[in-house]
């Protein structure tokens, strides 16, 4: 259980996190979603006691992170897979972390096995690929067998096999009753992994909802129609209150009306249809739509 109340983080005049309140429940994978620069990492850093909030507070299991008596046994975290000493062997990296929380040497070998890194345990960290480093970071998060897990972009740098493995792992951890918070800037990734979504943009909470609900509420439907009398049909649809966009002389995109209704209108006026296709916006598009106004770094002149 992670609970944030009115969390604010300012760096000088920039507000990275702006009055964020949420509570992340156990037993679910919660996707923490937002465009780059939305404040995801800053929020995670505040949860983990690395950054002090300018205002507000955040608690893990009812306590502020810095007050946890054995932090690694309560919270496992992976913020940056490359945040390790390049000259240290993978096993020693895990060992020094384990020892700091009184975790046994046996558990180090155990987590190495879980993430599939036994073979490179003796290799120095700088010799690990980004994918291996991600696995090592995940191994360190699992060391304390914690009830709360926090991962910042864990699939970065992983091959398709690794991505699938991470998804399965997240789902397994949540199914065991743990609280799992995973950040990503890719909606498509979250659609496959998360049960619940926390969407932020420019540091503000945009949505706190289940994935299903998010899809239902935000996916815009449109109807793709090809007809020799496209212009005529467009006029009829506009009269009926729909928005119409002509993409070709004989192709139109109708929004605000479903395909059945478009069909009825066409039949009533004797308009011949060559093609009538309902189009559901992808999750990715829904997410873009939702965060359009809050994208921090937008390429000028490029709109979708």
């Amino acid at each position, binding site marked *: 259980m992670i609970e944030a109340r009115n969390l604010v983080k300012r760096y000088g005049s920039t507000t990275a996190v702006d009055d964020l309140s949420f509570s992340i429940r156990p037993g679910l994978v919660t996707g923490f979603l937002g465009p780059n620069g939305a404040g995801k990492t800053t929020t995670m*850093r505040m949860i983990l006691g690395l950054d002090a909030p300018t205002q507000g507070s955040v608690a893990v299991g009812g306590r502020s992170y810095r007050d946890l008596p054995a932090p690694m046994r309560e919270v496992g975290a992976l913020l940056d897979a490359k945040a390790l000493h390049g000259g240290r*062997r993978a096993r020693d990296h895990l060992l020094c972390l384990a020892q700091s929380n*009184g975790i046994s040497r046996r558990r180090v070998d155990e987590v190495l096995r879980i993430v599939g890194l036994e073979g490179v345990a003796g290799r120095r960290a700088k010799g690990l690929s980004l994918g291996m480093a991600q696995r090592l970071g995940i191994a360190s998060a699992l060391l304390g*067998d914690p009830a709360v897990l926090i991962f910042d972009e864990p699939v970065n740098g992983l091959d398709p096999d690794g991505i699938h493995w991470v998804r399965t792992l997240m789902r397994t951890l949540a199914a*065991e009753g743990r609280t799992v918070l995973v950040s990503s800037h890719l909606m498509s990734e979250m659609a496959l992994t998360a049960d619940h979504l926390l969407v932020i943009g420019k540091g503000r909470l945009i949505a706190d909802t289940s994935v299903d609900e998010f899809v239902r509420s935000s996916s815009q439907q449109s109807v793709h129609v090809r007809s020799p009398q496209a212009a005529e049909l467009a006029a009829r649809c506009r009269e009926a209150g729909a928005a119409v966009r002509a993409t070709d002389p004989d192709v139109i995109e109708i929004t605000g009306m479903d395909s059945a209704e478009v069909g009825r209108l066409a039949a009533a006026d004797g308009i011949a249809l060559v093609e009538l296709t309902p189009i559901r916006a992808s999750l990715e598009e829904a997410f873009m739509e939702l965060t359009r106004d809050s994208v921090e770094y937008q390429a000028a002149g490029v709109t979708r």
Partner: protein
Amino acid sequence: MTGATIAPAGPDHRAAFPAATFGDALRSEWTKLRSVRSTFWALAVTVVLGIGLGAAISAAAAHGYAKSSVSGKLSWDPTAVSLDGMAIASLAIAVLGVLCISSEYSSGMIRTSLIAVPKRGRVLAAKSLVFAAVTFVVGEVTSFAAFFVGQALIGGHAPHAALGDPGVARAVVGAGLTLTALAVLSVAAGTLLRHPAAAIAAMIALLFVLPGIAQALPDSWRNPVTEFWPTLAGGQLANVYISPHTLQPWTGFGVMCLFVAVVYAIAWTLLDHRDA
């Protein structure tokens, strides 16, 4: 890998896990220190420079003794001469001390470390204690070896010292103690400045550059500097002959320790309050 269970015990079995202790942090820091190659190299350089340079300086000084002036003969301190290499060797300890924390900043490991041990003072205390202990052992071994090698080379050419002579044992042990204080200071400097290059530059300035500049100043300026400059004052502990305008051995070491304590307190406070 896919078949492995994540938690054989399951997440409900953590009712009474033990709190992490300072001892845990010490074990962790010891693993960190011994698991990187730079530790081995820096300590090897300390030993080799401390003994080797000490031997070279001892041999050269002993051969020059006969031709030296009366005042030079009066202030002849064979113990200090044999320990002279330690002053140069201290640079290796300063660099290693700076690196053992600032390399965590440059690699990002510090965030991993502070997530594992969010009580930041504990990380700093454990790190400096482990490094100070290692430096103390290496420093004393080097110091005693340098003393015996140096006296063997001096003997026959100039008066040499024995461990039983007044003040000699204190000076030999003292050379290791000064190195240990320097070790703590360099960890604090690394914490304070965070960037390895900046912290190493600061240590070089403190150890060599600024005292060197002071030598070029007129006496009225130079004397108080050589008397109270922390690293020079601390170095008094390794001298048997007390020259004018210098502090008594333990007073000098006290001045250095006071300086280390002040820098350490600032580093501790900043570490605790800064975003990592």
